[in-house]
């Protein structure tokens, strides 16, 4: 097994990539760019847990509260994400329903599950499948931002569909929660230090 930088008392700057000697337990800064240095991201596990839990909390109202309220002359209706999926499905456009379901419901949930799995495996010092877990991590990092699509769609709809008094639409209270879920999971993903996966494999 190759020598890790931490074992050699070295630390790499995450900003400029400069490798420098670590001054021990103390906090340190990069001698070239001045960015904070840490051999492993500090509180990575804690921070990821915190953000993931926050995201999980926000996930509930994000799916229960309506994200979009549309008013027409005759009626006014509020849709949650799931009811929107149902409407899309019943109106025949099941591919769209599938996309929304996957991007807005499954992916945030999957991300949270994946993060929990990674955190637990690091915690338990599992050495199995470290490579697969790293791949999983890269995938959730890549895929996370696409959930934001919903927020953008709603934003556009609200901005464009304003034909008072014939038709109007307003964002629902669920939307900020949904955005919070997406942002928090993204933050949680970045705050997770994938090097921790390998630390366990190293031991």
């Amino acid at each position, binding site marked *: 097994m190759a*020598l890790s930088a931490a074992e*050699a*008392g*070295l*630390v790499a700057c995450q900003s400029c990539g*400069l*490798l*420098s*000697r*670590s*001054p*021990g337990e*103390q*906090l*340190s*800064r*990069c*001698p*070239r760019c001045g960015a*904070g*240095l840490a051999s492993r991201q*500090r*509180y990575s596990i*804690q*921070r990821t847990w*915190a*953000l993931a*839990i*926050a*995201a999980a*909390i*926000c996930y*509930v*109202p994000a799916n229960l*509260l309506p994200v979009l309220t549309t008013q027409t*002359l*005759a*009626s006014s*209706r509020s849709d949650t994400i799931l009811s929107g999926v149902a409407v899309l499905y019943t109106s025949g456009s099941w591919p769209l329903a599938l996309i929304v379901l996957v991007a807005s419901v499954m992916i945030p949930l999957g991300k949270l599950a994946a993060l929990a799995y990674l955190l637990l495996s690091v915690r338990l010092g599992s050495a199995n499948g470290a490579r697969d877990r790293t791949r999983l991590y890269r995938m959730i990092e890549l895929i996370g931002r696409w959930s934001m699509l919903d927020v953008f769609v709603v934003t556009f709809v609200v901005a464009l569909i304003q034909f008072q008094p014939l038709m109007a639409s307003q964002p629902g*209270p669920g939307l900020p*929660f949904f955005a*919070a879920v997406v942002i*928090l999971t993204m933050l949680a993903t970045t*705050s997770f230090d994938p090097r921790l996966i390998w630390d366990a494999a190293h031991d």
Partner: protein
Amino acid sequence: MTDQSDLRHLPEAIAVPRQRARVSAVWIIPILAALVALGIVIHRVWSEGPTITILFDAAQGIEAGKTFVKYKDVKIGQVTAVQLSEEPGKVEVTARIARSAAGLLVEDAQFWVVRPRIGLSEISGLATLLSGNYIGFEAGTSRNERRSFTGLEVPRIVSANAPGREFLLKARDVRWSSAGAPVYYRRVPVGQVVAYDLAPDGKAVDIKLFINAPYDKYVSSETRFWDVSGLDISVDTSGVELRSTSLEALIGGGVAFDTPAYADPPAPAVDGTPFTLYRDRTTAMRHPDAVATPYVLHFDESLQGLSVGAPVTFLGIPAGEVTEVGLSYDAATLDVRPRVAIILYADRLLEKFPSNLKKGRAVVQRLVEKRGLRAQLRSVNLLTGKRYVALDYFADAPRARLDLRREPLELPVVVSTMPDLEAKLASLLAKLDRLPLESIGADLKNALETLDQTMKNVDKTLPGVQTTLEEARRAIASVDRLATNADTTLIGPNAPAQQELRDALQEVTAAARALRVLADSIERHPESLIRGRLEKE
């Protein structure tokens, strides 16, 4: 293993002294998220009002999740479910009401479905054509909370909280087509008919009126209400009158009220005392006639055109009305006569008419026996054929006695002038009828035909006439010429004819002279005619 000398070339990181926290500050985020989510849940639970059920006959236009409950046009709730009720034939609508309106859900709160209603007199709820039906709500005044209600099928017209008062009217019938008809005071709409229904005994119609504040103060115990529905066409002694309060009332009906000027100082109307709804203003505002004296009249002519309610005039002044028109049978004489019962309001005519019955009768007796007071049927006008009873003095009427023992008094009558007029008219018509109009017509027709024929002939001969005329003209011209010739031959001073004429005349003169001589000689010697002339006697 590690090559220490290689690593020494690397720069050393700058140490930053800092105390280490055991717990990351990032935990604030989930706590914050949890607090916000909890806040929302608490808010939801807190603002969640009661769930109520309303029974309707039909759930027309009511949809779960789409129909709102509105109070004063503010959404206070939403229908969550519509299902058939356990009560047969009813629909149960479940609605969630906002917490802010929970206090309004009391025993006498009312619900009804607002849908477009287009009636003869009202068009309402048009907005619901676009917005969909909704459930209207009216808060009650009771303090007892309630969660299940029965919806009204007809929307409330007047808000329960509207300032004003409700009044009850009793009427024989109603002429308007729907509740909501306006109530007028001096032609100003001041209220509405809230509801009307048959009285429990079925013998009258109970009408509920709502008069808005501050106009309700004009209703006193002396106020009269009357119906202003449709057109009032009245035919009476003053002719034909046509009235309508407003176009709205003309179509949809209405009620008007006023307080007569002669009324006692008006006392405020007592709640719950029903007013009478009169037929029209005249009836309503009529003075309450204190003394109505009945009389009977036995006419000896047809009562055609006389109806109950027809006026009775006394010397031309309206003094009463006909109450009964019928026949009477006299068993003693086996006679059937028209009988008319009338009532007279003596106090309408005279303020000081004796109210004492006996004295009053004495007055009537004197009028009948000394002044010749008689009843007579008269015609309002010839066109309508309506008749009324007139009481007038007929000084030359045959004497009559008033039987004071009879009850009611029978007034003597005189034959109306109308039958004569009618008879004359009839005989005139009969004469007209007898005229041989047809044969006259036929003759006239023949004459005209002949004339026509002649004219045609003339037409044909006219060209001939023309040539004749031409010839005549020429002849005349010849005559003219002839005359001129004659002129010169005969008339001129040297005309040969004249010369000859003169000579001829001289000859004639000479001849005449000879004749005279002859005559003389014959006279002297008549014998000479026989013997001849004696030479030289």
